[in-house]
């Protein structure tokens, strides 16, 4: 029930944020996409914070050897993959003319996305026999 309330609150937050941004001015498709990604990141952040607070309230450990291992593996692999992302961005930046800030912004969003995907992979699959 609690999880349902948190999920509903997050969705409501994202929905309200989207409507407010959309109705307060003209937004291009790229602006809308950036805003959706920003709201999603804020939503994930709030969800993460709520989870941590719940864990502390239950007097459980926030971090242990498994969570540290997942973070280590995720960090190293996402760094490795991100190098290729920046390589692709640097090649594309010669062909697609965008302001530098925008390129850096997309790169950072890409890095965050890569980190999230790899973290989710390890959370689901684990690492057997390593």
């Amino acid at each position, binding site marked *: 029930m609690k999880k349902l309330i948190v999920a509903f609150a997050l969705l409501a937050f994202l929905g309200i944020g989207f409507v407010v941004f959309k109705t307060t001015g003209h937004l291009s498709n790229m602006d809308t996409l950036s805003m959706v990604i920003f709201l999603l990141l804020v939503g994930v952040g709030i969800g993460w914070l709520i989870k941590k607070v719940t*864990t502390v309230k239950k007097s*459980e*450990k926030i971090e*242990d*050897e*498994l*969570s540290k*291992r997942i973070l280590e593996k995720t960090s190293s692999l996402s760094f490795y993959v991100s190098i290729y992302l920046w390589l692709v961005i640097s090649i594309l930046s010669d062909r697609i003319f965008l302001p530098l800030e925008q390129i850096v912004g997309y790169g950072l969003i890409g890095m965050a996305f890569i980190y999230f995907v790899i973290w989710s992979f390890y959370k689901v*699959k*684990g*690492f*057997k*026999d*390593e």
Partner: protein
Amino acid sequence: MNNRIKELRAKFNLTQDDLAKKVNVRRETIVFLEKNKYNPSLRLAYEIACVFSTSIEQVFLFDEKNST
């Protein structure tokens, strides 16, 4: 590597939460261990074996055929 944590936990009438608190890890770690998704550190393996009053090799079963 396989393990008998689930079986021993049932024998000792412990929940995943109880075992997690006894060995000072999160419940998720016990879930991962029971599903064979994670090989614990030697220290954690030892602590788990101590909870079940047995040895590490009685809890964790090393599969030599599939070892690399």
